[in-house]
């Protein structure tokens, strides 16, 4: 009974968090310590399987894993005609790596962050369920299975948003997040119906082979693009994101950022592999670019006028998502044309590299905001001031995150933004200029936050604040370490992680 771990790693990446999520209530009855041990054990075993899968994908190449099927056929045909199929390729490997790093950082951070709250076994279960949901959304190669994991991720993240109750506002944010996710899920179900009705197949690869651009396919594509843009937080649909990020507990927001980026990963997989050249990619590319530009500009201008820390950072998450949409939108616009090799591939690499960069420094920033609220209990920028004197480490982490998000040269934000600027400039100079202006405005708003929180005289009302407890600093240190690692060796990251992801977009393994 030799179990080939490598071959089964996609399934085990899902099974382990789910198993430990459901074990938590039982173990919690026996001992509180046991429950936290189970929580971290589950995360580290999942991290092991993610690294095994990623190593296999980057050395040998992707494969697809059929649940309950007879043998694991390399290209997923044969008996897997009607079975649920997981695809382990460049995209899922990179997305799982992003999720694992921020999940481990957030888990260590939340060990101390959540200690004043009751009902912690529910928190652990929901946290693991959200991770399983996001991993499922990214790994799956089956359209309806994608809907199931989309709902699992939405339900668990809505419940986590409503976990800490700030006089009912958190519940309101969770309710809105849930209503929109459910309505979007129903439209998603409609588009699954359109595609299944026409082609009788739900599997990404077989659908991609026989999709022709009929009108019904265009309607299904529109619904898929808009639903996934809603999950990712592009501008006309971004309204739930600021409420959700600002009301969720600090550690949950770091993973929530990756959960909405899973919407982006799936959007790229749908647009590139499922539809590819069956639809007029120039217009589709321009639609994604317009979504990106809107998200960038409106996200940052809204952030400038914000009054609370987390809401400001939430709007920045939206504007950074605009960068990713812009990068990959340019790649999509020139798909199939010769320019693809000149700047299209570079734009896609920049967009996708920006996803993992953003997940790292945005998680870091939200954790610093969480520390400030954990220590002072105040959320509004006007009431905070002079915290730099007592919170040295948090200030250092905040500066690393703020410089990275603003795209200051040595940091990883700049590496991916430079790739986007260069390639988008040769596609259309105006877009690149807008991107640079938005980057300057991002820096402006983070200077505002830094000044109003950390600088200024030592305030008596917040004088008793001490530095954040050790686990929270460790959680932030992990993410800051990854940010610094990516900023020192961008070439390494691009060649090992980002290029296979761009390769995987073109062809389903």
């Amino acid at each position, binding site marked *: 009974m030799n179990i080939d771990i490598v071959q089964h790693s996609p399934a085990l990446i899902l099974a382990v968090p789910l198993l430990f999520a459901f074990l938590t209530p039982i173990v919690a009855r026996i001992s509180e310590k046991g429950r936290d041990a189970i929580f971290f054990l589950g995360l580290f075993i999942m991290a092991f399987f993610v690294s095994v899968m990623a190593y296999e994908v980057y050395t040998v190449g992707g494969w697809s894993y059929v649940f309950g099927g007879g043998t694991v056929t390399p290209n997923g045909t044969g008996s897997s005609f009607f079975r649920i199929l997981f695809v382990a390729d460049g995209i899922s490997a990179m997305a799982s790596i992003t999720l694992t790093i921020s999940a481990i950082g957030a888990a260590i951070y939340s060990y101390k962050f959540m200690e004043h709250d009751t009902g912690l076994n529910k928190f652990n279960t929901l946290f693991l369920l959200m991770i399983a949901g996001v991993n499922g959304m990214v790994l799956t190669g089956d359209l309806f299975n994608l809907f199931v994991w989309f709902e699992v991720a939405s339900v668990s993240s809505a419940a986590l948003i409503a976990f800490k109750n700030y006089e009912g506002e958190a519940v309101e944010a969770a309710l809105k997040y849930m209503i929109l996710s459910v309505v979007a899920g129903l439209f998603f179900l409609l588009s699954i119906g359109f595609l299944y009705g026409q082609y009788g197949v739900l599997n990404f690869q077989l659908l991609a082979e026989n999709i022709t651009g009929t009108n019904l396919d265009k309607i299904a594509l529109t619904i898929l693009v808009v639903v996934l843009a809603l999950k990712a937080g592009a501008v006309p649909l971004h*309204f739930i994101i600021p409420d959700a990020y600002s009301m969720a507990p600090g550690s949950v927001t770091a993973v929530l950022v990756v959960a909405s980026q899973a919407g982006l990963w799936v959007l790229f997989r749908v647009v590139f592999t499922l539809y590819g050249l069956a639809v007029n990619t120039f217009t589709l590319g321009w639609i994604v670019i317009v979504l990106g530009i809107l998200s960038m500009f409106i996200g940052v201008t809204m952030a400038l006028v*914000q009054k609370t820390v987390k809401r400001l950072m939430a709007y920045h998450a939206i504007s950074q998502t605009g960068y990713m949409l812009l990068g990959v939108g340019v790649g999509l616009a020139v798909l199939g044309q010769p320019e693809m090799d000149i700047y299209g591939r570079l734009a896609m690499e920049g967009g996708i590299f920006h996803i993992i960069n953003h997940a790292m420094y945005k998680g870091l920033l939200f954790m610093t905001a969480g520390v400030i609220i954990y220590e002072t209990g105040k959320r509004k920028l006007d009431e905070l001031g002079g915290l730099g004197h007592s919170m040295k480490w948090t200030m250092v982490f905040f500066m690393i995150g703020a410089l990275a998000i603003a795209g200051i040269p040595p940091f990883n934000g700049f590496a991916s933004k430079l790739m986007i600027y260069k390639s988008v400039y040769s596609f259309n100079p105006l877009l690149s200029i807008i991107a640079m202006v938005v980057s300057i405005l991002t820096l402006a708003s983070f200077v505002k936050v830094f000044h109003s929180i950390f600088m200024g005289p030592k305030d008596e009302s917040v004088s008793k604040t001490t530095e954040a407890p050790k686990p929270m600093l460790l959680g932030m240190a992990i993410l800051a370490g990854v940010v610094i690692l990516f900023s020192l060796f961008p070439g390494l990251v691009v060649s090992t992680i980002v290029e296979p992801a761009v390769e995987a977009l073109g062809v389903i393994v």
Partner: protein
Amino acid sequence: MINQLVLVREWHPLVLILIGLIVGLVVYVIYRLGNPSFKETRYKREPFLSGNVSPGESKALHIGGSNLYWGFTRALKKYFKPLVGAHTGIVNDYLYWFIITIAIVMVVLYFV
């Protein structure tokens, strides 16, 4: 090998950090050449707050929070007022935007 490891299409973070270190070194050398006995005298007087008494190291000095960019927001009021107004917080408006975006994208994809 280092080049392959770090270079991202002509962007080389280590070169920048190296340059930063060198410039830092030069600045430090110039700082050390300075005359340590120089007393900072010129700006000894209090900053001129148009006659008001300076509130000292209290919280009042700290302009922070939302009114840091009041000039920027006031100048672009015509742009910010509708933009901030659009974020009404009512679930129905959020769903309007969702349906409107689907309609627009469907029309654009159909006709172009």
